């Protein structure tokens, strides 16, 4: 049996023409365009940064830095990928750098490490969901939080932010196959963890 997925995922890319127009305008120093770009992407990028570094203040700072950098280098802001992919890419790199430098600097500082281990209190996006479903969704995403950093990132990008495998590969600088692997392993992990949670309950019955 062929174990590789037989085909690449159908969706390869989505490019927003409007975002491209914004990039052109920003390059020419148009501040309104820059503001639009910020408003359009801030929410998603913040949520993504938070899922990576788990610190609200630092996530905010990182988004600020990414946009500040874009503005300061606006005249040379030529990008080959979609703006959305570019921004996720930039935030991801900034987060990785942040983690690396802070972990090294604060290796002995327990407080900081504790903070990184604090899982954000996620709530389902759809407020209309019934309680049971909403509980299950929360449970799944909490398990995702305990996954290794890179796998967590791939899972978030795919399921939460709706990026295609191809786009995730660009953001994370890995192959599409590796993305697929991460997704597959995430599913396996979540299933196993859910089973663990449910096991003790069953034992009570005896």
């Amino acid at each position: 049996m062929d174990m590789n997925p037989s085909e690449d995922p159908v969706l390869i890319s989505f490019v927003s023409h409007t975002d491209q127009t914004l990039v052109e305008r920003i390059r020419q120093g148009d501040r309104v365009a820059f503001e639009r770009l910020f408003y359009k992407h801030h929410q998603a990028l913040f949520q993504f940064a938070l899922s990576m570094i788990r610190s609200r203040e630092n996530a905010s700072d990182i988004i600020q830095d990414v946009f500040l950098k874009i503005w300061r280098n606006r005249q040379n802001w030529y990008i080959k990928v979609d703006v959305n992919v570019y921004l996720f890419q930039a935030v991801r790199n900034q987060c990785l750098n942040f983690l690396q430098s802070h972990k090294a600097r604060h290796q002995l500082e327990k407080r900081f490490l504790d903070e990184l281990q604090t899982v954000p209190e996620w709530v389902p996006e759809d407020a209309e969901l019934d309680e049971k479903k909403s509980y299950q969704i929360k449970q799944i995403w909490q398990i995702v939080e305990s996954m290794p950093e890179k796998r967590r990132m791939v899972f978030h990008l795919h399921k939460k932010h709706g990026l295609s495998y191809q786009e995730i590969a660009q953001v994370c600088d890995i192959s599409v196959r590796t993305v697929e692997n991460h997704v597959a392993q995430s599913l396996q992990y979540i299933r196993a963890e859910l089973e663990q949670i449910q096991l003790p309950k069953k034992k009570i019955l005896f």
Partner: protein
Amino acid sequence: MEEVYAWIAESDENLGLFREFKRIWDLAEYGIRYPESPSVDLEWELLRNRLDQVPRVLELFPLKQTSNQRLHSFSATFMRYAAILIFTTLMSFFFVQEYYQSIEMIVQEPVLREISTSRAERGSVMLSDGTRIVVNSESTLRIPNHFGVDKREIFLQGEAFFDVAKDPNRSFMIHVNGATIEVLGTRFAVKSYPEEDEVQTVVEEGVVAIHSLEAGLTDRVMLTRGMVANLDLAKQEIVTRSLKDLAGFLSWKEGFLTFDQTPMAEVARQLERKYDVDVLFASEDIEEMKLTAVLKSRSITNVLSVISTSLGLSATLEEDRVLFDHVKLYKDGKPSGIGTMIETVVTEE
């Protein structure tokens, strides 16, 4: 793909496993968010204050990252995860359900990715089979993770132009508002916004087949190059005609607005979508007025000026609201500044 179904059918364990994966997958689709997200206004205010500051130090991290942060190759451990990879493979086969009824129950819905454009946004989509799609404003495409073996199916709401890659073995089907549009490989546009109760198909090249069970059109209606079909879902009828101005119908792809005896009510909807404004009419009869124009300008003030001039109307743009009115006369008999001239109250932009 029979192999995959065979794998599921092989044992109850496999079936159970697959069912669980599918459940997790679907649940995770809902997504979560952090409840205390910062106010975007506040964040923008903070950033805005920093924009003009001269950087004291290059405090920013380099954007490129070093190679030791790259993920390892998983090829060695690949096989270990073979079983679960079947899940991803399975996504391709959700559309082929005819033979395996027992599995059909869990495989009811394909896993889809959704692409939406907001008002004033257009976008391009590329699919793995080489098909390209241009999506107009306020439209949604739902695309399966994998195509089936004998068809390529997607779902549309709104307006999109399709350049479908030829594949004689797999027809390409677009499900839109109760109708199905089927092609092998060709270029055409489909429009069906929820408020319109109509599906319009314009063919630029090749042959396109339309049928709609919902509208009682079981026989396919075939369209060829240069033809437009309007399927009226309420009246359950389809009207086809040849177009003189094919390019006009497709010019939205380039960001133009083209109107051909188009009622102002429809013009208003297109303006709303394209410029993210609300369009109001001071009196109802303006909605019935018909406009014929090709508007290439990107600026809404120019566009409003052309429309108001050609119909003898006035157009007022205030923030994001446009008001069309009849030109009122002053006591001295001169128009109140509008009609030939557009009165605009533009804020910052």
